């Protein structure tokens, strides 16, 4: 779960990581009040959980409280990368001597956390990695040992600092590591990490992505999982999440339901090979019940972009007859609002086919065939 900047900064503050003075505002007049309280100039920042917010015009500056009101008015209610801006963060504008980068993320190959620091902040770290890899310090962290203060010193030293700054920067690094571990971060980063002319270090931006699977340890965030305010999920994705389905909205017109992530991805790929475009990725997961199936199908039926639904089931633990019954339920409740194409093999395949045949649904044998058929229908409808 991606926290919004202001939420992440609240957590940062708790760990003693310096952040700019600032307050969140939901209306232009609130933004004006905050600017007055803080003193100008201020930065007004759209609170959406998307990268590249700056480039997309999500960060504006104001020299007067009135101007803060104006730019807040422009941001609030707009959309950035498809996400609605419901809040802005109004902050003191920092004076900048240098912009650094520091982050903790999961190193999949080494199977551990890795701390990444760079003297090139303010741009995406992948950018730096591609253009100036020598400016990046990577420090893999042994999960059974952790990042110690002297490791943090080593990283801060590699960025060229000494003396008092070496201590304060390394202490900031160490705090972010503690935060990452204690909050089960999948990714946390400070970009830019600003060095002020006075030599202080301040987290100008803050990103904190918490491992969804660890939310049982973090009741504070768990509540937000289904909240509209979350901001990194579309309304459809939120609804699917409430129904316990793995759903990702895409921009085509063929609805896809599969069981198993790999199989569902392969189905999307097949649609693309056939020249079609999928409207979504929807994985029923293992051992899917008829309720899950019917919940998934009715979700896609409520999406106006969807012209046809392709269902691809490989029965293993999942039983084809269960899935067929789920499809039938939807027919009985709301009717088939769109054409459906079903491909189904494996456990209790015959019974599943029989149920669907009686409901007037033909069941196909191969993924290729099913994808072809769906693409054809989508073109026609």
């Amino acid at each position, binding site marked *: 779960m991606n926290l919004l900047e202001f939420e992440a900064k609240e957590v940062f503050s708790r760990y003693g990581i310096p952040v700019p003075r600032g307050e969140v505002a939901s209306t232009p007049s609130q933004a004006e009040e905050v600017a007055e309280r803080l003193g100008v100039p201020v930065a007004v920042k759209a609170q959406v959980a998307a990268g590249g917010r700056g480039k997309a015009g999500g960060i504006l500056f104001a020299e007067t409280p009135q101007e803060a009101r104006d730019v807040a008015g422009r941001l609030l209610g707009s959309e950035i990368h498809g996400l609605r801006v419901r809040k802005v963060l109004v902050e003191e504008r920092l004076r900048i001597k240098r912009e650094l980068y520091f982050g903790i993320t999961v190193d*999949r190959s080494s199977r551990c956390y890795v701390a990444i620091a760079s003297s090139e902040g303010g741009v995406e770290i992948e950018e730096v990695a591609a253009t100036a890899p020598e400016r990046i310090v990577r420090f893999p962290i042994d999960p059974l040992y952790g990042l110690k203060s002297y490791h943090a010193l080593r990283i801060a030293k590699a960025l060229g600092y000494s003396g008092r700054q070496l201590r304060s920067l390394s202490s900031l690094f160490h705090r972010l590591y503690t935060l990452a571990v204690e909050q*089960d971060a999948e990714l946390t980063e400070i970009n830019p990490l600003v060095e002020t002319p006075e030599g202080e270090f301040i987290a100008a931006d803050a990103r904190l992505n918490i491992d969804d699977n660890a939310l049982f340890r973090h009741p504070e965030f768990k509540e937000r999982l289904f909240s509209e305010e979350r901001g990194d999920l579309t309304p459809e994705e939120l609804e699917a999440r409430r129904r316990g389905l793995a759903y990702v909205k895409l921009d085509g017109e063929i609805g896809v339901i599969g069981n198993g*992530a790999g*199989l569902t*991805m*392969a189905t999307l790929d097949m649609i693309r*090979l056939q020249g079609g475009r999928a409207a979504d990725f929807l994985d029923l997961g293992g*051992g899917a019940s008829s309720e899950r199936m019917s919940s998934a199908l009715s979700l896609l039926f409520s999406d106006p972009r969807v012209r046809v639904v392709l269902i691809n089931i*490989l029965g293993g633990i999942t039983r084809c007859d269960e899935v067929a019954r789920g499809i039938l339920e939807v027919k009985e409740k709301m009717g088939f609002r769109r054409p459906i194409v079903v491909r189904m093999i494996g456990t209790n395949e015959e019974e599943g086919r029989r149920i669907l045949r009686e409901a007037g649904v033909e069941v196909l044998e191969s993924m290729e065939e099913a994808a072809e058929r769906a693409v054809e229908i989508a073109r026609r409808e």
Partner: protein
Amino acid sequence: MGIFVDRETRAIVQGITGTQGRFHTRLMLDYGTKIVAGVTPGRGGMEVHGVPVYDTIEEALGKHEAEASIIFVPAPFALDAALEALENGLKTIVIITEGIPIRDSMEIVARAKQRGATIIGPNTPGVITVGECKLGIMPAQVFKEGSVGVASRSGTLTYEIAAAISRGGFGVSTCVGIGGDPITGLNFVEVLERFRDDPSTEAVILIGEIGGDLEERAARYILEQGYLKPVAAFIAGRSAVAGKRMGHAGAIIQGRAGTAESKIQALREAGVEVAERPGEIAKIVGELLGRD
């Protein structure tokens, strides 16, 4: 023969009294797997399908010999279950559980390394050495015995491909699900090393997907080591978009890393034949094994 498990493997089921544990214990027993004991705290003294249940692994090992375990316990308890298996000296641990926090998986894998044990998973269908031992939840009927080794990051897609192999008249030696999470006990390279040394395996199929760089590293390994057995692959997720998790916790393109294109290109450069669609696999296997 095959890798990781064979007809001699004796296993404990951790979380045997839950719905999943109970169900799959029966299927594994039916397949001929030697399930010698089950463990569920507070359920010691029960039996599940004739398998005695104990409160702890220590107790189970007081009565039975075992070298493997399969874990079905809920995600919040999986770390402790895996550590218990490791501390008690089990050497092959299959973690079926989905949704384990990354930090817990990192700890499990690090501890396993200290103890020289193999973790299969988490979030895996498990491992099957066809005709000998199934330590997992895959449907047995899709696998026919043969000489193709399979390593995969997914479940049903693997069954799809296994079924295709069977339909083509070929069969599988061992099929290993390395798991769909970002952190797993095994990577493709480690499985390739095992298949290299397995006389019953003549060719290898890798089933990869977007996210991470396990496939790229496998390609590099194949190229640099001059891997002697033929390898083919299928990579799911060519139509995935960046930043969105495609079902598996590990299936996500982050920035520029982890795209299907990058993986397919790396594999092809290493001489690996990459199928465009699952249905082509049987044909490719035929070519690899030198029969059409």
